[in-house]
């Protein structure tokens, strides 16, 4: 029988596989802040924009929610993480900004410097 430590390592490997099967290894990973404070600042609408973009055919992007990192006055926040590149952190993301992030950053790779925290 496996010890609890051996069991947890097995469970961890399974968890990692599940995350990967959901597309974690996509070129770009997008994280949207979804704590009470971020939702109050409008992050649900922002999340919807990213979800829609994926539903409408945007590929090679892994979308996830996350808790609050503590950057209250710049919420909602969105991070775009790409392997081998410095993670891009956007602040005060409105639905309009989210649309632009989809079009310019996720599709064309342009970092929109003026909204970066």
């Amino acid at each position, binding site marked *: *029988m*496996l*010890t*609890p*430590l051996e*069991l*947890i*390592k097995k*469970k*961890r490997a399974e*968890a*990692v596989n*599940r*995350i990967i099967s959901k597309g974690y290894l996509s070129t770009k990973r997008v994280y949207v*802040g979804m*704590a*009470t*404070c971020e*939702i109050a600042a409008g992050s649900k609408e922002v999340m919807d924009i990213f979800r829609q973009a994926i539903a409408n055919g945007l590929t090679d992007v892994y979308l*996830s*929610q*996350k*808790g*609050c*990192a*503590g*950057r*209250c*006055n710049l919420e909602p*926040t969105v*991070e775009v*993480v790409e392997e*081998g*590149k*410095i*993670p*891009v*952190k956007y602040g005060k993301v409105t639905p309009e900004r989210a649309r632009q992030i989809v079009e310019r950053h996720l599709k064309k790779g342009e*970092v929109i*410097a003026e909204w*970066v*925290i």
Partner: protein
Amino acid sequence: MKQTKYKLTLCDGTACIQGHSKQLRTALEAELSKHGLKDAVSIHLSGCLGMCKKGPILIVNPGYIMYGRVQVADIPEIVESHLLKNKAVTRLIISEDHLYNRFFRIFGDVDFFGKQMRIALRNCGVIDPENIDDYLSLRGYEALAKVLTEMTPEQVIAEVKKSGLRGRGGAGYPTGLKWELTAKQPGDEKYVICNADEGDPGAFMDRSLIEGDPHTVLEGMAVAGFAIGAKKGIIYIRAEYPLAIKRLEKAIAAAREHNFLGQNILGSNFSFDIEIRLGAGAFVCGEETALIHSIEGQRGMPRPRPPYPSVSGLFGKPTVINNVETWASIPVILLDGGDWFSTIGTATSKGTKVFAVAGKVKNTGLVEVPMGTTLREIVYDIGGGIPNGKQLKAIQTGGPSGGCLPVEYLDTEIDYESLAKAGSIMGSGGMIVIDEDTCMVSLAKFFIEFTQDESCGKCTPCREGTKRMLEILTRITKGKGEPGDIEKLERLGTMIKRSSLCGLGQSAPNPVLSTIKNFRKEYEDHILHKKCTAAQCTALLSYTVNDKCVGCGACKRACPVAAVEGTRKEKHTILQDKCIRCGRCYEACKFDAITRA
């Protein structure tokens, strides 16, 4: 922020500074300009990264390559090889598989996060809180598996004691000692409680932590259950945190599914389960004995201690009760080690503390810093200073139980003892930054109004005393203060502190007493000169029109009660008996023609 090709982070902790990190920075800057890289590379400073033995530390992003024991002589090689040819210098690379500071990979280059060190909040803003796989992938529940596989309950308690962790709810009682006391009690029915009844105005540490990483709280509680021999844990959280509750419920369900909670956890003979109890939001229920009464279904009122909950707690059984942040630190202590944890912080206070920084500061937010960080670092380096060019006046810590520290205390190093010595308390982590536009008498009145309202009414000093204090403070802010009021407040405050039953009453006068101690002149101005220097107490203000008036009529249009009279292009006047002192005319005037006194 400027996007550069490379971002370098130098550890600016004390140990790394002793290891010449300052010289490294100078050498780096010189080398960068030699190669014309100044615009392509930015240099950031971080607070202690917790790897002091391997310092000084230099991190190169992207890729999060970490160099250890970097010497000035290594700098040319790092710049030429890594930054110019994109070839990392392998002989200097170190790797650390620690739990803390996970956020750093993503946020390390933002100044707001640079000085922080995250142990309790390590996963907040990094993982999906509703997906247990995310938590598992970052060594989630490994601490629980570890204690079940290779530790005895005594060893777990010894490890927590060694870490020096103290309760993060405010009182700062050593966590390991609390567990030991409970473990030693006879009987096999014991309880573990998580106090998530966060009630300080302006505090949101517990909510953010639960919403960002609920599993760490469950794991910490299960570890304690093993250590003290309890089978049941209860999370007491206020109903006004619906999202936090939803995420906790989801986390508990997922943990049960994976057998991290329930019968024979992970195949061991340890069984433990957690349920949620909702509080109705009474502030006094954050006090442990009142909280226990509330869970038992009784009215949320405190009782005298001893006996402490570790002896006689929930349903009269031995109970460990800790705050959310304390629970979140437990997995880190067990995996990164109690010895390591005890190297962070000051002589008496170990580890880190989460603060909810709010008020008149540019970057409001949730910060976690090592104990020993100064208030100045929090307000200026992390908080970015005071907005609109205003002056800092005071810092309020500890919510309605805490005190106001004036600017002289800016270099106070944060730990339980030094904050208490300065006249405030650590509290659960509320921190309000106050600028010159805030009247300290009104602020004290606000807090007394809160505690007066939240007093459960069981003991007279708290019930009646806070009410009388509020009456005196209200009178002072209305311009009806009398000589002797300050002394009366001091006498009353000291009496309430000494004779109240629980922590609520014993600390309720603190905001008043500390503002009297540090800002006595403001009280005197209100009482003797009927003047509010911060111009916040409307009853003490008067508005008059001076000779700069050109008769434009802007004030007349702005006045909501038609208290301004005058014909166009002639000097206007304000009818004092009609004026409600709202200040709109003062703001509307472009000619500086309205005097506020």
